[in-house]
């Protein structure tokens, strides 16, 4: 689905134009243009301090850009707010801040959106049933939806956080370092989940330092360096060495040369 859509006339889910942001003297983003398409997994790579986190914070409404605009659903905004971002279907899956450890899986998935019966009681049965269905659809395996989240592994927690994003009617899902501090098999599960979200038609934006992971899941790779988007690749047209070259800056002035060397 994603690739067919990608080949045809593509309408981006969100379009960023000339986004600038500085913190005092430090220029974090210096005129970034970015289009994120539905049905596609886009990886955002770059060295520490390149501006990746600032960029996703601007998309999710946590930070306001100094200049530039975001357009979405045919509307243009100077900046987002967290609640507007949620309304527009943008949700961010954070590593640690997203879940309430002491509540169970179903309650976390429905947090803030609990169905009620008799106008007072939380409809636990419905929450459990719908959570089970959703997790099954996402192929997240969890012992039981009534397990408190504190008993889950990092990968399972990511799964729950993703399920919650989808429950919030999310259509664009942003992952900030989804596989950091995770074991091999666990990472594999999370990557599989992210890939399947892309295939289901969600617009997915992933920040990762792990190029191996990026190459497994991404349809396209954008390299950010010193606040500028220096290069964006289709994954099939590039290789890790070339991407590393752009991340570190050694490829900056030899762009022409590298592209030729790849095509040949």
């Amino acid at each position: 689905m994603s690739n067919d859509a990608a080949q045809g006339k593509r309408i981006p889910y969100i379009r960023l134009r000339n986004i600038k942001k500085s913190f005092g003297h430090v220029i974090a983003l210096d005129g970034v243009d970015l289009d994120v398409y539905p049905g596609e997994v886009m990886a955002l790579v770059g060295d520490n301090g390149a501006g990746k986190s600032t960029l996703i914070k601007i998309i999710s409404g946590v930070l306001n850009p100094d200049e530039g605009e975001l357009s979405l659903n045919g509307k243009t905004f100077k900046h987002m707010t967290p609640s507007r971002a949620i309304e527009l279907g943008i949700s961010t899956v954070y590593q640690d801040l997203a879940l309430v450890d002491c509540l169970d899986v179903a309650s976390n998935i429905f947090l803030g959106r609990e169905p009620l019966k008799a106008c007072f009681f939380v409809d636990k049965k419905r929450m459990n049933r719908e959570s089970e269905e959703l997790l099954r659809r996402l192929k997240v395996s969890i012992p039981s939806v009534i397990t408190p989240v504190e008993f889950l592994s990092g990968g399972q927690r990511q799964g729950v956080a993703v399920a919650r994003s989808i429950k919030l009617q999310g259509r664009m899902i942003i992952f900030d370092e989804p596989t950091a501090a995770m074991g091999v098999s666990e990472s594999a599960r999370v990557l599989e989940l992210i890939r399947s979200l892309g295939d289901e038609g969600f617009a997915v934006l992933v920040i990762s330092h792990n190029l191996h992971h990026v190459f497994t899941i991404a349809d396209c790779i954008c390299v950010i360096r010193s606040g500028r988007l220096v290069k964006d690749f289709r994954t099939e047209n590039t290789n890790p060495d070339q991407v590393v070259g752009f991340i570190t800056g050694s490829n900056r002035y030899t762009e022409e040369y590298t592209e030729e060397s790849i095509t040949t």
Partner: protein
Amino acid sequence: MNRTKIKLLLGNIFPQLLLILVMLIMVIFLSVASPFFLTWDNFRNVFDHSSLYIILALGMTFVISSGGVDLSVGAVAALSGVCMAVAMQNGLGVGTSILIGLAAGGLVGAANGSIISLFKINPFIVTLGFMSLARGLALIITGGIPIYGFPRAFTWWGSGHIGPLNPPMLLAAFMAALAALVLNMSRFGYYTLALGGNEEALRRSGVSIHLYKIMVYLLCGVTAALGGLIVTARLNTAEPLAGWMLEMDSIAAVVLGGTSMKGGRGSIAGTLIACLLLGILRNGLVILSIPAYYQQLLIGMIILSAVIFAEVRSRKGLASTHKKERSTAV
């Protein structure tokens, strides 16, 4: 699936089961030690005395589950008692006066919650401030002199009879049932626990955490005012120094009942059992004519051992369950 359910349930109610066991041992010991202990009149006494602590500890359970604490409840109980008394002195009806007292308690609670939430100040300090403030107000309003002599319709709330029981007991039972429903099954209860578990996550899911925090402290203020009603009605006196150290007694009961001081975990049943246990303990010490000073000592020791037990258990017990759950899952 069902095994997980049973395991989780057992893990959750283990501290309460242990409390019941300790209580049974105490009952057996006291029944053997004294012929007066195991009589209906004595039990009625225990329930009667515990009802005040139960009502205050219920509100405190919400506050502590939400990751906070309220040190002002004793002073708020005194202040609301004084407010009711002054209202009645000025010719207002009993019902209206009680409502005014409850409103005063709710107001102090809401003020507590607002300052804690909006200015992000440690609840310990804020409620300490309101403890002094409420006590000061109670003293100012009365001029330091207790007000006494109320209509029968008012003193009924402390010393009336409903069959073999009395109003404080029934009020405590009713409030406990209500609190259990609200904490475990309502949205407010979920958010109370979520506030204690991970406030930031709750904020990010679009819930107004200010509103819910204020409501938690407001509720605690109202239960403190209900406590004030019982104390004032029972003694037929509004005493500005009433409810001294009541905050400590209710915090102690809540912690003993298995509610986590770190927030995120709360048990109404535990609070109820702990209040009864402390009630039986106080009663037993009196029956065995042990000097009152030893009560403080013994209660302190019990609280400390309960806290240490809970901490050790949460480190060891949870770690092992954690491993098991993981291995079955992956």
